[in-house]
């Protein structure tokens, strides 16, 4: 008996020694404070951060966020369904949110701007609402075009030109929403004829140098001339240009898709009220009016916010069509799997 007691005593002392630093560790990160909302942001940090700073300035609510690409973020929210660690999923092409609906991860909410938003910028039940619009573009390296005597691509078929062999970079559908929007764009311009659309993507495959993990992953290589061109969201493309890289933005005459950037409240969120406030703010002109100030080239979703003139000039003559969220949401998984099987690993 005595031995057992001594043993237990020693063990508990040792555990205590080990526990002290761990307790310090636990104490070192403050439990989410009452005035902090937790967010997974799909927008890259350099855009999300100024937005959240504006939000804090406007409301006094702090935002604790971490950035994931859309696939990763969605995957995390689904995995954490039983015990959500964040309150809001911020940004990302709407098809990401559409895919999440059938997983039952969102709490429907209709912010004050709901009524004013066009139909394609909101889910009828308020599962998500749009905060911005983001068309895809073709982006090419100016020097590359000149060296190969090419005009900026003005048609989907221009990208099949042999000069682009091994010189295009675009996103990997396994991780990136950009890629999914791209795939649905190809489907749309082919009249949702899946056979034709995948035929085109297979033909494009030899020209692909690399499928990047994130949507913007290829912009830098294109800017540097490591790659000749690619298909990106306009916001990434313009950012590349703004950084001083000599790139050309063009649109295909057949048209190209645009994806609404959405926001959604997580079901079972620990701070639902704060989450709703963030959604109220992000879906209203309050946030979208500050986009231009921070040189974030999303098109506003709210009809009361004017498109920044420089941005408007870029898209003036472009043929841009929305991706049908219901169709995309319903077919996303199947299309991605088909893309992996037929395009990525033929």
């Amino acid at each position, binding site marked *: 008996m005595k031995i057992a007691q001594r043993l237990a005593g020693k*063990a508990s002392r*040792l555990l205590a020694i080990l526990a002290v630093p761990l307790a310090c*560790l636990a104490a070192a990160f403050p439990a989410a404070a009452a005035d902090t909302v937790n967010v997974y942001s799909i927008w890259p940090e350099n855009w999300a951060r100024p937005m959240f700073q504006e939000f804090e300035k406007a409301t006094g609510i702090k935002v604790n966020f*971490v950035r994931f690409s859309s696939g990763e973020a969605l*995957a*995390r929210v689904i*995995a954490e369904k039983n015990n959500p660690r964040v309150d809001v999923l911020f940004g990302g092409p709407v098809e990401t949110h559409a895919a999440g609906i059938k997983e039952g991860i969102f709490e429907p909410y209709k912010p004050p701007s709901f009524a004013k938003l066009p139909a394609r910028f909101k889910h009828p039940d308020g599962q998500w609402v749009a905060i911005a619009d983001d068309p895809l573009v073709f982006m090419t390296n100016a020097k590359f075009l000149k060296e190969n005597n090419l005009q900026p691509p003005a048609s989907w078929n221009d990208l099949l030109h042999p000069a682009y062999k091994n010189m295009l970079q675009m996103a990997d559908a396994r991780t990136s929403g950009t890629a999914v929007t791209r795939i649905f764009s190809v489907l749309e311009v082919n009249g949702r004829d899946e056979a034709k659309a995948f035929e085109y993507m297979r033909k494009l495959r030899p020209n692909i140098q690399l499928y990047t*993990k994130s949507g*913007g992953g290829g912009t830098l*290589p294109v800017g540097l001339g490591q790659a000749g061109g690619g298909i990106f969201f306009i916001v990434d493309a313009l950012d590349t240009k703004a950084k001083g890289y000599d790139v050309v933005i063009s649109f295909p005459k057949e048209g190209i898709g645009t994806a609404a950037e959405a926001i959604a409240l997580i079901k079972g969120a620990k701070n639902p009220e704060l989450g709703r406030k963030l959604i109220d703010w992000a879906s209203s002109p309050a946030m979208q009016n500050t986009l231009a100030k921070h040189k974030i080239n999303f098109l506003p979703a709210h009809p009361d916010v004017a498109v920044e003139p420089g941005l408007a000039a870029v898209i003036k003559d472009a043929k841009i069509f929305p991706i049908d969220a219901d169709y995309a949401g319903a077919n996303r998984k199947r299309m991605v799997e088909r893309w992996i099987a037929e395009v990525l690993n033929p």
Partner: protein
Amino acid sequence: MASVAPAAGPARGLAWARQDPALSATVLVLWLLLGLFVVFPLAMLTARVFWDGGHFSVAGIGAILTDRHQVQAFWNSLLLATLVGLLGTLVGFVFAFTVARGGLPRWVVTAIDGAVLLPLISPPFTTAIAMVFSFGPRGLITYELLGLKGVTVYGMTSTLFSEALTYFPIAYLALRPILAAIDSNIEGMAMSLGASRMRVFRTVTLPLCIPGLANSFLLLFAASLADFATPLILAGNAFPVLPTQAFLQITGMFDLRGGAVLSLVLLVPAVAVFVLQRYWVSQRFYVTVTGKGAGQQPFESVAPWVRWALVGACLAVTIVIVYLYALLLYASLVMAFGANHAFTLRHYGVIFTEGLKAIKDTLLIAGFSMPLGGLYGVLLGYLVVRKVFPGRRTMEVVSMVNYALPGTIVGIAYLIAFNDPPVELAGTALVIVACYVFRYGPTGIRTTIALLQQIDRSLEEASQSLGAASGTTFRRVTLPLILPAFFAGLGVVFIRSMTAISATIFLVSISWTLITVKILENMTELSLGPAAAFSVLVIVIVFVVIGAISWGLRFFRAPGSEPVTSLLGG
């Protein structure tokens, strides 16, 4: 009596526990921790693979084994690891041989050591990204210098090159003491018997090194097998490898089961390497490395022209390394690499404002992992070598598991095990700290074991005979003597805590993030500047801390105890 072990008398039973409560309590606690952080996650991983809706199933494994693409990835992984093992060992041997036999001045050796250390303490991606900028279609070397066009950097060759460059220092560090310990009198003897220099090398030096070469090959093989960062950047889509596939399966499609299956497939070669190393190579060392040099002047075992060729080869590799890191530093100091080369400090501004949380988190986690990992290594190493208790050997093997497995497996296993109750640790710093302690602490275990084998047991018995209980003996005699191992353990755990990504990328959360994950993030976005700045910062921090530890080591070193030659050995 070194080769005999006490026969376990049936009557003794629990006598060991009764006699020494401190020992039994420590053993108990260590088993609990090993159970929770090593056995449990692996069991959960295996269960996830074979347990489908409440019954046993091999469908998950079957689906992978029949998927042509994944099978390809498996063979690619093996091929890459083999080539990296061969190339890295070759380069490492050339370096080790040149340093040991080249008769180089001291400062040249120091310079080589410094340059060779760089890849070991760098965050992942650094050589990979520098490769892209040097050898890509618009690379500084391929395009600007050589004027080549349409070159593709993505694929096996560049991955191999980058990994070999990153990991050859492991081979160098493993082979140098062996070459140094070969008594050059043996070579002199062979020469006096009429053998030419080349013949001496072929028939004496090389054969003596073979176990060392095999060991180094296996180390590099394992390192390459586990590397996920380099292929993620460089392998492209044409050359998929398993760790990257498992990562994409999980983070991209959140297919935990698929990721688990892929990582379990990876387990097979990893375990094979571990077993080979432990039970085959380690028994075949002819040369005992004691840490003491052979002492005598190395004789002229190398012809002058060979010596110059060797020095030239080393210099070339060293220059490539220095060039790659200079490029990294440069990229961190210009506005936009490749477009706007105006000098700026703004990237450092960015990492110290927006990236500050990642820096703080990383330092905090590394700061906690370091002492815990060091203590864990020393304690477990000590128990395993010096104490007799049931399951001693098993404990040693279990403690090496997380160390031997590729990080991807460990990360995925932790993710599966700690995501849901009963042990819900996902999202906490604790899970990251535990991952580091149990994954990198074993280096300290090995150093402790090696050191203890050189310290006569009678020292501890003397203490005991003077009336000190086992705890006191450990604290006052053993611990001071194995402080070098403790510091080595600290160093390794710290370096890895600052630079590792393969396991912990699965464990970052809203509350805790890491610099390495930020680097990957920045890399996959457009922000090369901050990525480079973060990398430079990590290298600087690691250098400072290693310097401090080395200084501390000198300060604490007991007179007469063996110096630890390298913080990264083993």
